[in-house]
């Protein structure tokens, strides 16, 4: 069943159809939130909020087949709202823009990496969270769920070739950063 059909079922009152949309999109929505706020723990709450708001607002979705990008848009807005929240005014607005610098990301150090990761993987996740926004986003989307370049292209509204290029750049950046870390550690 396509997303569009599931949306129609949801509108007809079959909430279980939305369950399937939630299961399908939760990894990508969580990835978008993680990439936006740079904190794994907050990403979970914000993603849940976005999935819920999507349900409440589904009647306003104009093109039902574009459910995914629409939902990711909601997730982005939920994250922007959270980042703008008064309690976090120490975050400059530029920190959420396209060129957000990793150093400005809120609390990326205290993002509470998954405890089961070993030191190397924690370092790797640190570096992932420090990637430039557009690279961070595509890499997180890709690794949160096995999806194709084509899927990612639809969500990010670009071409599959762009996805390929950004992923390649992201990987090269990680490679350089990690090599440097190793070098620094050795000297």
């Amino acid at each position: 069943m396509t997303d569009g059909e599931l949306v129609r079922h949801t509108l007809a009152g079959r909430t279980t159809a939305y369950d399937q949309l939630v299961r399908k999109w939760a990894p990508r929505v969580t990835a978008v939130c993680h990439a936006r706020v740079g904190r794994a723990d907050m990403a979970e709450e914000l993603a849940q909020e976005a999935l819920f708001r999507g349900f409440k607002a589904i009647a306003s979705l104009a093109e039902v087949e574009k459910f995914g990008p629409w939902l990711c848009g909601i997730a982005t807005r939920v994250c922007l709202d959270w980042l703008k929240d008064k309690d976090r005014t120490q975050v400059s607005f530029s920190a959420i823009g396209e060129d957000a610098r990793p150093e400005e990301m809120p609390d990326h150090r205290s993002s509470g990496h998954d405890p089961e990761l070993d030191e190397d993987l924690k370092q790797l996740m640190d570096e992932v969270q420090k990637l430039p926004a557009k690279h961070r986003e595509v890499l997180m989307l890709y690794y949160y769920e096995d999806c194709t370049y084509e899927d990612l292209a639809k969500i990010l509204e670009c071409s599959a070739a762009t996805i390929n290029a950004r992923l390649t750049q992201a990987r090269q950046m990680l490679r350089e950063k990690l090599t440097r870390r190793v070098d620094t550690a050795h000297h």
Partner: protein
Amino acid sequence: MDCEHASNLISARIDGEIPPADQAALDEHLATCPGCRATMEVLSAQDAALQKAFAPRRRVASKVADAAIARIHRDHVQSFRPRRFPFLTMALSAAAGFALAMLIVQPWRQSSTGGGGKIVTTQPVSPAIPAIAHLALATGTIEIQPPGEDKWQVMATGAAIGPNSRIRTPLNVRCEVVMADQSTIRLNSNSEVLIGKGRDFTLATGQMWSSVAKAADPFTVSVAQASITALGTEFDIAADAQQATLTVIEGSTRVVGKGGERVVKSGNKVRISGGTPGEVQAVGNLIVATGWVNELLMMKGRDNTELSKRVDALLAAIGNEKMMYMYEDEIKALGDHCVLPLTRYVQSPLSASDPRKRHHAARILTEMAQPWSIPELIELLKDNDGEIRFYSARALQRLVGHGMGRTPEQWRDQNYVNTYNEWRKWWQDNRERYPVGPMGPTPLPGNTPPLPAVKARG
């Protein structure tokens, strides 16, 4: 080929996205470029590390989905509860744009409505009439006839119901009505009931299940020239104009007819013919006798406790060695309806403490699983219990016609991570070919990650 282009292709190869036409060209370049060979090696290792680093994140995403679904169902169910001022229900619904979109009956559905009588589409209850109930759930179009009118009107889920209204269900449509006192009645398909002032009903025809909230006032159903009275209980009545069968599920009820009077206790049924109650008989299995309500229960979400309890009761009965096959058959008699609860039971952490019962459930699933169970059966191939993997593999074999190169018996002894991942991949490629379940789509396994040990792509 330059190294920049090659690095894009290396990335694409790692991701299993390299176009076939570029395969050979990349190999050729790698053969002559030590730098790109090193890149290939480093990025492959990095990919493996990223897969590992993101594995907990993927599990979190699945928890996020669970939490969001639970919240949505909670919200949804709450929106069905009677409001403090129930007669304002319609107005409130209208105000909430979303609720209206969700709940309003689509005009094109009228044409499918069965039964006689002219149908109009005005609001079912004027706000001036205080509501005594509301339509909580429906599997299709429900009609209402307000007092003093001869026209049947289509009513929306969530709509208020005034006193002395008639409600009817067409073929294959069932509904649940929640009364102001929190009593609940459910109507099977092709049923018609007159709702009196709140605790008095007349079942003209069809089948009605009642769960009666305790109150000083008796709860009475008139049927086939007799009346059935309860104070706080659960019972089911199937009736036409001349005769009726009363099945008492919980508590007790009193049947009074012109030809006599009887008290019927839980687990028993009585046939009422021409106003005379017959002998009280024990019911073979209450769950099966009232199995028709399951369709409504399943609309309440997968974590519906009432439905799980029903299957649980049957599973518990299976524990009785002598009767085992009888109850197993009764579970199977639920048809498709047993599949989801059985699956949930096998998946639930609670069942882990009772492996024997869990094996029974999995064994029944082997026969009863539906094509829409495939994704969940695939997930059960990961189970730590060899018997569960065996039964799941057998069910997959039955549904799909092959075992992905493994016999069910092999799964009993070993956990084949690679074959599990192949199954997942197969499902991703083939799911469009399989139908969705009778109650709408079942979740896909996309919410759980492939096991990280095996990430061999490209």
